[in-house]
């Protein structure tokens, strides 16, 4: 599906649409409302007031702690392709004047999967929020879950990030999860499900086991299975918000809980 992105054609309705036009529509197809996945840098540009973003821990980089075959090459490839150092970007900034700590996971880097540095960055961001008495917003586009190449170190980031989320709850600080594009497995079964408010963009795929994990079981899937529109009816999320409205909805929530 993502291959189509390069051809200036909407992957959902095949509408021909230029790059400049997509920029104007927040990377949403004007014809079918398909929400293109967007990277963490672009997300920050869309949400955070210009000139207010301060990135946290940008120097932290994944190594290959388990000496997993080919892992360094894969990291290197993603770094070059995206200009990122890890699958999550963290920092603080203002949303319509409301200060917040924000984390954005990036589908382009190891499918947004969680490993040592990812978990560390999320936890440090949350700990800073607690110290500064700021709310936290984490936007997840993580199809990858816990990153295989760091083995159990990755799995345990579920517990590490969730522990920090609970500290946030105990400190009575607002925590909002925004799900975009897709969010599954280790990410969705930890911090991405622990927000006070859980928002999804239209069409986002949400669940624990993705298609690959289900491939061995033959089951008929209900229509729209694991889409935002489906899981909201099952009670899993609070609201579906169009990307163009996301900033103002977040600002309203920050205002309400301030």
């Amino acid at each position, binding site marked *: 599906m993502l291959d189509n992105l390069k051809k200036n054609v909407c992957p959902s309705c095949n509408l021909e649409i230029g790059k400049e036009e997509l920029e104007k529509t927040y990377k949403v197809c004007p014809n079918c409302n398909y929400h293109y996945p967007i990277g963490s840098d672009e997300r920050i540009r869309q949400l955070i007031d210009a000139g207010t973003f301060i990135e946290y821990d940008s120097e932290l980089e994944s190594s290959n702690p388990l000496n997993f075959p080919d892992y360094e090459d894969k990291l290197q490839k993603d770094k070059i392709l995206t200009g990122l150092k890890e699958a999550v970007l963290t920092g603080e900034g203002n949303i319509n004047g409301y200060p917040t700590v924000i984390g954005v996971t990036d589908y382009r880097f190891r499918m947004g999967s969680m490993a040592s540095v990812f978990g560390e960055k999320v936890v440090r961001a949350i700990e800073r929020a607690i110290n500064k008495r700021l709310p936290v917003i984490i936007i997840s586009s993580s199809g990858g*879950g816990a990153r295989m190449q760091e083995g159990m170190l990755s799995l*345990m*980031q579920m*517990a590490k990030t969730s522990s920090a989320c609970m500290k946030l709850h105990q400190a009575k600080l607002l925590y909002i999860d925004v799900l975009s594009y897709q969010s599954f497995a280790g990410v969705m079964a930890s911090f991405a499900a622990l927000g006070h408010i859980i928002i999804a963009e239209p069409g986002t795929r949400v669940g624990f086991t993705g298609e*690959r994990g289900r491939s061995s*079981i033959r089951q008929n899937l209900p229509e729209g299975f694991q889409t935002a529109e489906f899981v909201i009816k099952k009670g899993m999320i609070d609201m579906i918000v169009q990307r163009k409205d996301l900033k103002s909805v977040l600002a309203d929530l920050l205002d309400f809980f301030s």
Partner: protein
Amino acid sequence: MGNNGLDIDNKLSQFENKLAELKELACMFNTDMSPEIKALEKQFLREKKLVYSKLTPWQKVLLSGQSQRPRSSDYINALFDNRVELYGDRIYGDDPAIIGGLASFRNYKVVFLGQEKGRDTKERIARNFGYMHPEGYRKALRLMKLAEKFNKPIISFVDTPGAAPGVEAELRGQHASIAENIGMMSILRVPIISIVIGEGGSGGALGVGVSDKILMLEDSIYCVCKPETCSEILKWGKDRIPEAASALKLTADELKELGIVDEVIKEPLGGAHKDHELILSRVGRAIKRNLDELTLLEINELLDKRYVKYRNIGKFE
């Protein structure tokens, strides 16, 4: 190395057969061959120890899945007295893939949880092979909150291939139930001990596995994904599954080294299934020792330690 873990046992049983043959011969001819027999027995034990000390991670994966290994219910029945099993999540149903309840253990009253794979085919099917559904995680959480309310430590036996991956599990919020358990277990105000007794299958295991102390049986495994899945995702093919098992660092000793597991419980020679009594008593002793230690701590100190324990997991430059 063959893909069948029982190859090890076959090799050893050849040895054993030889030994039996010798004994029979000695008996038949009424000759004293005890020095020879003794020597052979010694050699056999040496060989056995050598073989089992050199198990590859993949062989441990196969060993950990041994159907004759003691299950959660075996530990619970042997180690705990005055057991009362409790059922259901009060919302949807009861999940037979996890058992839980109240019991006394030595001088303690505890709430126990155990992921249960079942023994014979019929029971294994009934228990969904230990794959838990959301109602199972919610049942576990209900019992853990009960433990917290009445200040009882929690003992959780981990043994699952993973969380149930089917459509039903998704419809009932598998991700949310696991996330909530992981979150709540990190702040529950009672001591929690988890013991990985066979298979620690990813998020499905962690959903009842967050604890002050993670104990792990020597030949059990705990992994982010199955080596088979790992090898498939990386397009390594079936031949490289053993390599995936090594790469994932899923054995008890490796996880101790990584600072994830707190204590490795030694298994009888050849694995837990070779001597149930011995492993049951070792696990009992380990639980007792850790409970004694944890219950001495003031609760806020315990919680700080728990937070720091997970806070510090991760390796990077």
